[in-house]
């Protein structure tokens, strides 16, 4: 019998504790005024880490067939990336026009 079968709640509360640690680290980085060039990648990395923990452990993607995880992850990330990369240069053009 595996550990997860012995105590089915364990994984959720371990994930909860890890999420709290990561969240407190993010708040700490903000409170201690980490330089912005370091703060933004730090926060983004930890945000993705939290998303992976929630998706993997709470939503059980870790235990599903890998193509389900791939469909979810690629579907969301690729679309978001395309959207973001298209509109970001446009936002700079808008800003330039507004300032001029």
């Amino acid at each position, binding site marked *: 019998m595996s550990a997860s079968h012995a105590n*089915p*709640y364990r*994984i*959720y*509360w371990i*994930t*909860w504790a890890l*999420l*709290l640690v990561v*969240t407190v680290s*993010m*708040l700490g980085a*903000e*409170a201690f005024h980490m330089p912005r060039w370091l*703060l*933004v990648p730090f*926060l*983004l990395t*930890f*945000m993705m880490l*939290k*998303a992976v923990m*929630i*998706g993997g*452990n*709470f*939503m059980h993607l870790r235990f*599903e*067939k890998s*193509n*389900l995880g791939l*469909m*979810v992850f690629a*579907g*969301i990330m690729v*679309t*978001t990336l395309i*959207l*973001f990369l298209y*509109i*970001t240069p*446009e*936002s*700079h053009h*808008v*800003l330039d026009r*507004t*300032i001029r």
Partner: protein
Amino acid sequence: MMHDASSAATMEAHWGGGAAPFGASWQKTMMWIFIVTDALLFSGLLCAYSFLRQASPAPWPGPQEGPFSIPFIALMTFILITSSATMGSAVGASKLGDHRATLRYLVLTIVGGAAFLGCQAYEWTHLIREGQHLMNHAKGAPFLVNPWGPPQYGQSFFLLTGFHGSHVFSGLVILTITAIRSALGKTPAQNVEMAGLYWHFVDLVWVFIFTLFYLI
């Protein structure tokens, strides 16, 4: 329940595509497809927020300059993460067939979700009282009065947290129905799992809003 089981069996019987492509039941596959489409809605909203922020000529207020109390937002995050853990435990208990524990954890999740919504209502009220008006009657245009910076700041806040809050509210309705049916012994473990997937998704979206709107 018999009707649910027989309709599910009928649908399974009509499935002629060979092995299930994702190795999951059709209910779970459909739930995941719904979650992906809903995630794309939030993805669009967050990209729009990014656009507004980068195109804004006025400086965007940082976490220290804005009207929000970061410790309070951290408390909201704590509540939501904890409710996700209790939801996961409800799913675990339902798979074990422990109906009492399932109901107990579902009720705890509902309490957490309601507390989060209460905090969000407080946050909205606080922001409006501080000066972010929902409607500027003098100019006849909404969201234009904002003492902290560009008007898009308040617009983004209400749009992002409003959409998320409406999802929390729908989640609470789903969980309440699941809890009542669970108390009556009418909810199979799979339905608790589906409700759980939706609730964890709500938590997942908050992770992005918390970081991108409040912290960065």
